């Protein structure tokens, strides 16, 4: 283990390589970078604090056990880690159907309009959030709703169709169009080759 400062200088991919060599400090450094966003996502999906903590703990321990599974050719560390967080949180929601009943549909259905004022936040995470929210704001309401139900609600396309009251084909079209627009809006010109998340460049 080296000092915390040494880890901060490393890129995400280098941290994962160290984790694969059983370097606990590297895992902690990854947690310091992504623990908060992972927890925020898990909380948003499962609502319950304890379950959200379980999800995040599982994600980081699974990276600890199986860092070798991360394939840099497939995407960045942040994509991998947050996708895993999403999968597991959605899985919890699907198993615990009562979680869904506990929240009102409005909560589940929409991406949140604004962060609550006064929330301490990382500047770069805040920038990223603004960017994603601006991209979401450009989508037609029906597309945004379909994506939110799937992403935060953990609903399948057929479930979304019956909740919204439209045919399954319409939901498929809406999700495809919505994702395509988000992809275009979030494209970072000239940064395609930069495999790592901005946080890794500290």
């Amino acid at each position: 283990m080296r000092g915390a400062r040494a880890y901060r200088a490393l890129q995400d991919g280098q941290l994962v390589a160290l984790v694969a060599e059983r370097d606990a400090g590297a895992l902690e450094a990854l947690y310091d970078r992504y623990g908060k966003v992972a927890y925020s996502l898990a909380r948003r999906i499962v609502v319950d604090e304890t379950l959200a903590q379980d999800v995040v703990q599982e994600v980081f321990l699974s990276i600890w056990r199986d860092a070798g599974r991360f394939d840099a050719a497939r995407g960045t560390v942040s994509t991998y880690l947050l996708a895993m967080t999403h999968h597991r949180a959605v899985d919890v929601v699907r198993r615990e159907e009562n979680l869904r009943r506990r929240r009102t549909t409005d909560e589940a259905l929409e991406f949140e309009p604004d962060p609550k004022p006064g929330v301490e936040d990382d500047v770069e995470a805040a920038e990223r959030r603004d960017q994603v929210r601006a991209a979401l704001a450009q989508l037609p309401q029906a597309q945004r709703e379909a994506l939110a139900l799937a992403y935060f609600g953990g609903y399948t396309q057929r479930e979304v169709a019956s909740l919204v009251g439209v045919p399954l084909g319409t939901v498929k079209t809406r999700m495809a169009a919505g994702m395509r627009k988000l992809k275009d809006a979030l494209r970072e010109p000239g940064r395609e080759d930069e495999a790592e998340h901005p946080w890794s460049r500290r």
Partner: protein
Amino acid sequence: MTHTDFEQLAAGYVLGALEPDDENAFQRHLEGCTVCEASVRELEAVVGKLAYSATPVEPPPSLRAAIQREVAAAARPRGVRATGPAAGAGDVPRIHRRRWTTTLVGRLAVAASIVALLAMGFWNLSLQDQNDRYQQRIAAFEQASRLLNDPAAQTVRLEGSAGRATALVSSPQDKGVLITEDLPALRPGRVYEVWGIPKGESLNEAVPAGVFRPSRGVALVRFELPVTPTMSFGVTEEPGPAGSRTPTSNPVLAGAPTTRA
């Protein structure tokens, strides 16, 4: 389905929102389609960014501490004496890593990974899909839980071109469970087959233990065969749906039990 239909499914796929039929169809298509594969990668990156739209919530310090604790427990050196001065220096970390699944911590880690895998397995089941597959997975999970609690059961690590897997086997009970995590998807009409190979025998003497198709790389396969404590295990790709009587290809995964310290 036309290619355009598949292109449209990519969004639902990366969101994990496809119905099982669509998901299976899309996965098969994905193997041969570089266009859709590229599209899935791009969309996965978008899904990763969506996480940032959630309102930031500070995790409790206890979460960081809990992760640290678990990691420290798993990282603590064990069995250093057993490697001895005679062992080649280069071999030490390897031996070390191989032994860890036979320890209690290793056992717990296997238990945790089974729970995680089960979760991933259920990921593919829609709420309406509580049918045979569901029952089979429950049965496999129960068998895995029983084996984990059985002190006579052994953990066998399998490795190979197809990644890694873990088998829990019990010689007294002649039963086992194979847990895979990231097996490559199969072409239509092909299956994976599990084999037990008695010590000293060639692949031709392998005993078939069942066939399976992973879902998103994940499988929890229950099997019964005359297990001996030194038996090694392998997985090959075979013609489906029934598999073969003897292996017709080289194993994509194989492993022998590590001797207990």
